[in-house]
């Protein structure tokens, strides 16, 4: 029975059929078309001489099934094709569910999307309670919702509220949480997992129903009420015109939850419609952009055993704490124990946020994070990250002092956000070892790191820096050394335009709303406050000379008055317990104009970066702007946005803006090349 490409079937002494999934030519298991078809055939064969039971297991190390093969997704042309694609999965799940013998899904490691739906079609789900085990239905992040029967079956298992919370957030659950929510039946240590699976096959116990409250909320007379509540919650996070999937999911449930057959059929219809929306297509593209960046870090095997961070300020300290969280031994150098005590305390908050109340994990992270005011770590470091304040002269003299102390092959990385590498490397005997690792604030939350290379940077050093960035769980973006690099350069004109608008007398609330209406996660004014107006001013003034940006006078005077934004309690907004106090009645008549003024400055600069090859290609421009600024992911990034709206149409608008607001809207030379 081993004539399958992706599956291995083994019957044991108890006549239990163990179906091992080991997808060929792949590091992880995906529920690709072939995998589905093979399993379907296997089930047919098993039906002819039914075993005692069936257990589905993964043969990949520490991972179960990552979900459907998203590549297959991208080839779907229309809703009809999408419907057929989904029907194939539905047929398999229905067949699995109808098997006469007990069926068990035995999960260890990551189990997502289609993998979870396959498990839900089994009678029982047992999972290891190891840290690597994570179970989820993250389809919503790709602009769709579960489409292999997962909506109906997850609700049937845990009741609508827990199931909806899993599907609407798309979050990954630890095994313990999944058990608590009723999504899975049993958790055990890995060493007992097989015993548990066999036990469920042999005992075939009756499955527990969801709690009364949960069954109640599935009643037709209650559903509209609950649905309304759910929609309200979702609306706080995503607008329906930007992200239709959560609303479609709520609707599907509200309409069909009483009827299994109908719900399964309508699920196909709903996902087929969603799958061809621009939102879903763009989100899928963002997913692949993410994979592309990850792969950039996999070109070279490299491990920095010791990391030495110089500068224990917010950036340096947070970078060090992040590295410690990721398993690196890190020494942090600053001038005095007084300063490092602050760094250390701040790191405790990072550890608590990451590890909650896991005492051992916090202890281990602390043991890896070494405060080092004497700078001992420099001698053994493979990677030195400099994160002192932005002053080229000071940085150069630091480099001159430390280079003789460094190991011959150690890399020196600077976290500068605005100084050109060429201005710093001149201080080094080996200029080729200098690379930029531009982290964004807050380090723990921002996924992107710009890996800056100057003309002088060794190719191998760039590769190592990319690999390191990937290894600490960040997305590396190789970026050419030029003023502002990619992200700040594209972001800064947009932020400054917002500042200009406020100086013109437009309410900051209106400016921010124009941006969030476009799909930005946070308005530019609030963002400037959050970053810190002093930092904004510094970066802007460095960029102003090279990029011809006019620095709004209001920004400077606010900084001089000590209004630094969120951190000082007063910026453009006043802050109460860290939250901006906003005037809900703020209003502006022509919101579209505000939005255009903001977004076109960003788009125009993105085009310029593309033309100048600041990053390798248009995909990377989009990836950098999305992961570095949070630019509306459902629009797929600035270049993609220009393409889908039509560059000609947008360039006309841009010309109009230039007429109205001056030459800062002068079209970039490459604008007309965008579609070619």
């Amino acid at each position, binding site marked *: 029975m081993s004539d399958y490409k992706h599956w291995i079937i083994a019957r044991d002494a108890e006549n239990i059929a163990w179906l091992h999934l080991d997808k060929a030519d792949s590091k992880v298991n995906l529920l690709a078309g072939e995998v589905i078809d093979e399993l379907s055939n296997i089930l047919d064969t098993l039906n002819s001489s039914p075993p005692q039971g069936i257990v589905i297991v993964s043969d990949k190390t520490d991972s179960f099934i990552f979900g459907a093969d998203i590549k297959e997704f991208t080839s779907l042309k229309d809703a009809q094709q999408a419907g057929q694609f989904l029907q194939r999965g539905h047929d398999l799940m229905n067949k699995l569910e109808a098997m006469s013998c007990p069926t068990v899904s035995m999960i260890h490691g990551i189990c997502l999307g289609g993998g979870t739906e396959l498990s839900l079609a089994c009678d029982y789900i047992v999972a290891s309670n190891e840290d690597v085990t994570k179970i989820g239905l993250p389809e919503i992040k790709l602009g769709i919702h579960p489409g292999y029967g997962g909506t109906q079956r997850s609700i049937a298992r845990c009741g609508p509220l827990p199931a909806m919370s899993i599907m609407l957030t798309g979050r990954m659950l630890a095994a313990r949480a999944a058990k608590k929510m009723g999504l899975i039946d049993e958790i055990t240590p890995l060493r007992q997992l097989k015993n548990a699976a066999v036990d469920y096959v042999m005992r075939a116990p009756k499955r527990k129903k969801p709690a009364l409250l949960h069954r109640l909320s599935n009643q037709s007379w209650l559903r509209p009420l609950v649905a309304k509540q759910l929609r309200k919650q979702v609306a706080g996070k995503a607008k329906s015109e930007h992200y239709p999937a959560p609303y479609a999911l709520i609707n599907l449930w509200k309409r069909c939850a009483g009827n299994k057959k109908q719900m399964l059929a309508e699920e196909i219809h709903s996902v087929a419609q969603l799958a061809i929306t621009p939102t879903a297509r763009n989100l899928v593209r963002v997913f692949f952009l993410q994979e592309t960046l990850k792969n950039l870090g996999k070109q070279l095997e490299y491990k920095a055993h*010791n990391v030495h961070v110089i500068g224990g300020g917010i950036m340096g300290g947070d970078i060090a704490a992040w590295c410690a969280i990721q398993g690196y*031994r890190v*020494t942090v150098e600053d001038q005095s*124990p*007084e300063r*490092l*005590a*602050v760094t*250390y*305390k701040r790191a*405790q908050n990072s550890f608590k946020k990451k590890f909650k109340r896991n005492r051992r994990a916090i*202890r*281990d992270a602390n*043991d*890896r994070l*070494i*405060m*080092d*005011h*004497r700078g*001992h*770590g420099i*001698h*053994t470091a493979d990677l030195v990250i400099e994160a002192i304040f932005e002053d080229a002269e000071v940085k150069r003299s630091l480099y001159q002092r430390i280079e003789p102390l460094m190991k011959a092959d150690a890399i020196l990385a600077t976290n500068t956000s605005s100084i050109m590498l060429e201005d710093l490397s001149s201080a080094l005997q080996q200029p080729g070892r200098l690379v930029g690792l531009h982290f964004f604030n807050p380090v723990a939350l921002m996924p992107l790191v710009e890996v800056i290379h100057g003309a002088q940077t060794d190719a191998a050093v760039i590769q190592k820096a990319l690999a390191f960035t990937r290894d600490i769980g960040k997305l590396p973006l190789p970026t050419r050394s030029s003023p502002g690099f990619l992200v700040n350069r594209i972001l800064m004109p947009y932020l400054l335009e917002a500042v200009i608008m406020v100086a013109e007398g437009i309410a900051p609330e209106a400016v921010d709303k124009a941006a969030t209406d476009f799909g930005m996660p946070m308005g530019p004014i609030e963002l400037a406050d959050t970053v810190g107006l002093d930092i904004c001013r510094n970066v802007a003034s460095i960029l102003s000379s090279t990029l011809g940006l006019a620095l709004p006078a209001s920004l400077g005077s606010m900084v001089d008055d000590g209004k630094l934004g969120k951190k000082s309690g007063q910026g453009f907004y006043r802050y109460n317990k860290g939250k901006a106090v906003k005037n809900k009645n703020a209003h502006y008549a022509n919101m579209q104009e505000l939005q255009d003024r903001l977004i076109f400055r960003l788009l125009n600069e993105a085009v310029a970066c593309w033309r100048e090859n600041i990053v390798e290609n248009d995909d990377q421009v989009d990836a950098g702007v999305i992961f570095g600024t949070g630019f509306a992911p459902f629009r797929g990034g600035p270049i993609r946005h220009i393409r889908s709206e039509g560059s000609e149409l947008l360039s006309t608008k841009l010309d109009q803006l230039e007429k109205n607001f001056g030459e800062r809207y002068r079209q970039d030379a490459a604008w007309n090349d965008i579609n070619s």
Partner: protein
Amino acid sequence: MSAGRKVYIVDGSRTPQLKSRGKIGPFSAGDLAVGAARPLLSRLALSPGLLDEVILGCMMPGEREANIARVVALRLGIPQTVPAWTVQRNCASGMQSIDSAYHNIASGRANLVLAGGVEAMSHAPVLYNPAMVNWLGELMRARSLTQRLQIVSKFRPGHLKPVIALIFGLTDDIVGLNMGETAENIATNFNISRQQMDEFSVRSHQRLARALDAGDLEEIEVLYDANGNFYDHDDGMRADSSMENLAKLRPAFDKKYGSVTAGNSAQITDGAAWVLLASEEAVASHNLPVLASIQDSQWAGLDPAVMGMGPVHAMTPIMQRHQFGIDDVDFWEINEAFATQVLGCLSAWQDDDYCRTHLNLTQAVGEIPQDRLNIDGGGISLGHPVGASGARIVLHLAKILNRKQAKRGIASLCIGGGQGGAMLLENEAA
């Protein structure tokens, strides 16, 4: 005599010693040992996988720290394949760990050993008394509600009387004396006055203050706690210590007629100290610096009731083996458990009678000059975290020999239960 191959002290580090102030200190024994060793390992450009073993002395590890040496080694990121073990010889646990490492290297079993001592005295447990333990046991075994109520009714306030482990740890149950009482014995035997003890104590504080000002305690590594505090010096030091202040203190043990006070005894403190020991080959092949070599070591036993005399009993055989007179040794570190106990040791070596009766000598050894003994303070000013002190004095003696470009030194301490330990170091560069 030399145990075989030559053994070097490469380098070492310690925590500041933090005085116990009536509540549990910020660092557990494991935290202290990790905090002291990390900077040492990061400044020695030496892969921790090269270590042959880790030995740590500790009298009372925390409840989660069985075989604390292994716990600490793994927390330090030292590879799992490097074994680690804990030694306990009460107040000399830290010297025992160095002695064990010394012997393993000398005999050829090891080339590189990380050895140290640690004690978090403020973390010493407070335990339930046996009546309470039994009562809890019964309660847990009870099945029915009536049974449970019955047992609950047997509870008595006396059950709540705690057992303070530190008090028992510092009491010799064989002779029924706590350490302070054994010090009073020495004061009586050698006729040491309260005045002498207090003078010794003031000097200890003054010497520590001078050393701190002069930067002569560079082996101290800063500790950081989760609340944003840092600890960079021995915080029991009182630069303003004076005879007047010390005179105000009441005797702590023989309350009415005694003279041993909290002020002329070692402080209860938390701390850790480490040294890296290496064979001659390891020094050469890894191009390591050296502070000193270990030339000899000695353990001795004596009457537990005068355990504070331990140092003279341990140092004497070393002096004999090498045929040293007082002047052949440049610097001395005798751990200050009690001022009277150090003074008693000094007196004993000047006393023909004591030397003949107790040390098998024909005559007195002589007087150790005060300006070559504990020149940077000791347990009275900087505390005596019992398991750590042995390692601390060996490390600091090695540092003194380097600083003073002196050749030879002896570190020694007394041990609760009636023992003494001593170690002879040599600075070959001098």
